[in-house]
């Protein structure tokens, strides 16, 4: 029988990790939440809207972020990564590496004065490098904790030893260049939930995207980049413009199964692309009713609740045309309009379609650093590079007391991630407070 005082460790502050943490915390269990980035929120925070109801992603996520932050049972560790664990199910000891933020969380009120003065302009990771930020920055507008962060690799003072303008301009003395990276020990951990999320193809293999002209043709973007462009808080404030000529696109092509269902790269199906492509086409159409979209697919995969209706609405109300033909290569014409060659199954003809923009539905891949994480946790990965789980029990990893949820073990949508997050919380709770049965 476990002691009630045991805590839970949740790795990953995306929607899955947050849900696990909240469930456990609401059960009265103390939770340590580890997030690699400067703020929790994960992928969902980057999305403009979410299928199949198309409600604003951040608007439904933000309350959960705040709840997580205020919850007396939850301790959030940002800029943190698990280094190693000791012990067994019911009693783990975890070594966590914390990067210095160089900003005092209790003092900073993210007024942004420091960033105004910062001389460094660097690519904004959250906005998929579609715009610049300063070396001292908010990870994203609604980020939690709502404090600034200094990018140690880019900060002029930390790299060249001169500047400290941010410090001079902070009237709350929140900047602290004396901060050091540190290692903390979290002990008395009863169970661990791994919700480390996913990477996208463009993060792990840009070369494969060359045949699609990605990074070569300016009017070819990936789906997450397009999502940022659609977002009101994104680089184009939601008014999509082509990077080649600032014109607003009228004809957009979405190419499905980019990198997935492919024996040369990732032989699995990325699960969510048919739906997110449809969603993005819908939002684009809502912004500009003249926009027509083409979705080039192999099989339309819409099995979730309300998904078929969603696809139907796409056809009937949003001027989306689904073309059953996989596109292999993208060329451009003189005006940098992407030109696609495809087979029209109905007529059997080979046709060419000139569009204003191409959106690549790049597949979900195992997170970049999943190998390090699995090694330090002592859990196994499966043949696809995701976390190995037990047949018919997708929450169980290969190590007792360590559970997983969300895209860490397989590509999946938000509803299933959230469901698994609660399931993982249940299993962790059994271990921590159960035993009396």
């Amino acid at each position, binding site marked *: 029988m476990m002691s009630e005082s045991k805590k839970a460790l949740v790795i990953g502050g995306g929607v899955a990790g947050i849900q696990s943490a909240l469930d456990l915390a609401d059960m009265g269990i103390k939770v340590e939440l580890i997030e690699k980035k400067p703020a929790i929120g994960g992928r969902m925070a980057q999305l403009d809207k979410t299928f199949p109801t198309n409600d604003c992603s951040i608007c439904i996520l933000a309350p959960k972020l705040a709840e997580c932050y205020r919850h007396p049972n939850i301790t959030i560790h940002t800029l943190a990564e698990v280094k190693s664990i000791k012990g067994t199910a019911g009693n783990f000891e975890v070594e966590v590496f914390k990067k210095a933020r160089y900003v005092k969380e209790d003092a900073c009120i993210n007024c942004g004065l420091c960033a105004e003065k910062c001389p460094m302009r660097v690519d904004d990771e959250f906005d998929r490098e579609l715009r610049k930020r300063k070396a001292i920055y908010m990870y994203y507008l609604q980020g939690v904790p709502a404090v600034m962060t200094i990018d140690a690799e880019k900060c002029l003072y930390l790299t060249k030893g001169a500047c400290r303008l941010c410090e001079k301009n902070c009237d709350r003395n929140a900047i602290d260049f004396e901060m050091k990276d540190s290692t903390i020990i979290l002990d008395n951990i009863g169970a661990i939930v791994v919700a480390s999320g996913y990477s996208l193809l463009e993060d792990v293999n840009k070369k494969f995207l060359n045949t699609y002209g990605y990074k070569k043709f300016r009017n070819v973007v990936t789906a997450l980049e397009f999502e940022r462009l659609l977002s009101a808080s994104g680089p184009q404030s939601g008014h999509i413009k082509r990077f080649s000529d600032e014109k607003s696109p009228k004809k957009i092509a979405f190419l499905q*199964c980019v990198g997935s*269902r*492919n*024996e*040369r790269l990732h032989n699995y199906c990325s699960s969510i692309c048919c739906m997110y492509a449809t969603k993005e086409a819908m939002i684009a159409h809502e912004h500009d009713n003249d926009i027509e979209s083409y979705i080039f697919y*192999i099989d339309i995969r819409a099995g979730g609740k309300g998904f078929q209706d969603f696809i139907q609405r796409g056809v009937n109300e949003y001027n989306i045309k689904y073309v*059953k*033909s*996989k*596109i*292999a*290569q993208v060329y451009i014409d003189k005006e940098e309009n992407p030109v696609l*060659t*495809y*087979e*029209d*199954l109905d*007529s*059997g*003809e*080979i046709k*060419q379609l000139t569009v204003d923009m191409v959106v690549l539905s790049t597949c979900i891949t195992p997170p970049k650093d999943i190998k390090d994480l699995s090694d330090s946790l002592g859990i196994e990965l499966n043949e696809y590079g995701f976390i190995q789980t037990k047949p018919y029990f997708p929450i169980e990893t290969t190590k007792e007391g360590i559970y997983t949820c969300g895209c860490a073990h397989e590509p999946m949508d938000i509803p299933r991630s959230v469901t698994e997050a609660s399931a993982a919380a249940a299993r962790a709770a059994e271990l921590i407070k159960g035993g009396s049965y």
Partner: protein
Amino acid sequence: MSIINFEFRDEVIKHNASLSYCYQCSTCSGGCPVALITGGSYNPRKIIEEALLGLEDWLLEKQEPNVWICSTCQKCVELCPQKVELTEIFTLIKNKAFIEGKCPEGFISQGESVLNHGIAIPYSPAIMNRRKKLELPEVNPAPPEEIKKLLKETGFESNLTRWKEKNVV
């Protein structure tokens, strides 16, 4: 109306198992230069689908689409997400068609030359001359009888003869 023919299908798969993996995504047809120029009357995907359904008559008799105008550029092979070896499968189909005597004349003349001379283009006196002018060494190709012997072994000679019988002009 065609009837699915599992025997022929299995025969092709026995020769090249990669056929069975095709899920008809149209990558090949969308990437094929010949399909583009012929507006789709040539279509590698359709040939593969016919093979999958074992439609022998369409592949060997009607030859629709015409497998012979594949340029063997191998783009489809490189692009196929399921690693289906299209050109190899087409080769098998063409080989079968040749045995049936259904093959363009252009392939026959080359075959005959190799059968009789061991090489595709015999050396003309003019060329011999030109080689001298260019100070090129003399070439001693394979002894024709050795090659002929081998082509008997492989059955090439008899297939060639059969083709000529079936295509007397």
